[in-house]
């Protein structure tokens, strides 16, 4: 008799607890899913590879530049060399990459972070400039 009374007295508490546990479970699942989603897309600065060196060092750039100059110096035609050296650095770089390193336009575009159309445009414009310059000196 006492046990039955106890059950009736606790009935509200028991059903409330069951109700609460069910909803708490749902909240927990939702919270963990959200947290997991954030974790997947999160990169901590501490975890990134650390190096004191910048990705592209100035010495390397100078070396590249000198190398390109040397190869241009190998050109036998002195007039052509003069015309090439008369171009802008950016134009000369594209010509160097395309002719001596035999890189395609898309490769040059991805290397210099400009569009393929821009690379093509600058390349052919530079060639036209060289041609005009040489023709002009011929006359």
């Amino acid at each position, binding site marked *: 008799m006492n046990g039955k009374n106890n059950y009736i007295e606790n009935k*509200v508490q028991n059903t409330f607890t069951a109700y609460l546990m069910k909803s708490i479970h749902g*909240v927990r699942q939702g919270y963990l899913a959200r*947290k997991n989603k954030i974790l997947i897309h999160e990169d901590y600065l501490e975890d990134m590879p650390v190096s004191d060196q910048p990705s592209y060092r100035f010495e390397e750039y100078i070396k590249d530049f000198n190398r390109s100059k040397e190869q241009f110096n190998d050109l036998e035609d002195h007039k052509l060399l003069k015309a090439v050296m008369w171009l802008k650095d950016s134009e000369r770089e594209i010509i160097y990459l395309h002719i001596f390193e035999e890189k395609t336009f898309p490769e040059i575009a991805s290397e210099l972070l400009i569009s393929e159309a821009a690379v093509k445009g600058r390349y052919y414009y530079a060639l036209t400039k060289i041609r005009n310059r040489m023709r002009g000196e011929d006359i």
Partner: protein
Amino acid sequence: MNFEELLIRAKKKDETAVVEIIEMYKPLLVKNAIVDGYFDEDLYQELVKELLLRIQTYSILK
């Protein structure tokens, strides 16, 4: 005081009754707020919020 009276008082937004219910269910909430062996304070707050909501939405059947 039995639980039903306490719940009815809490439903009427009696602060002491609400606090008493939160204290009563604290172990359950803390247990559910543990993630990978660590207590997650944010999750615990979410669960307390849920408890407060459930006090209001629970309907006592006779």
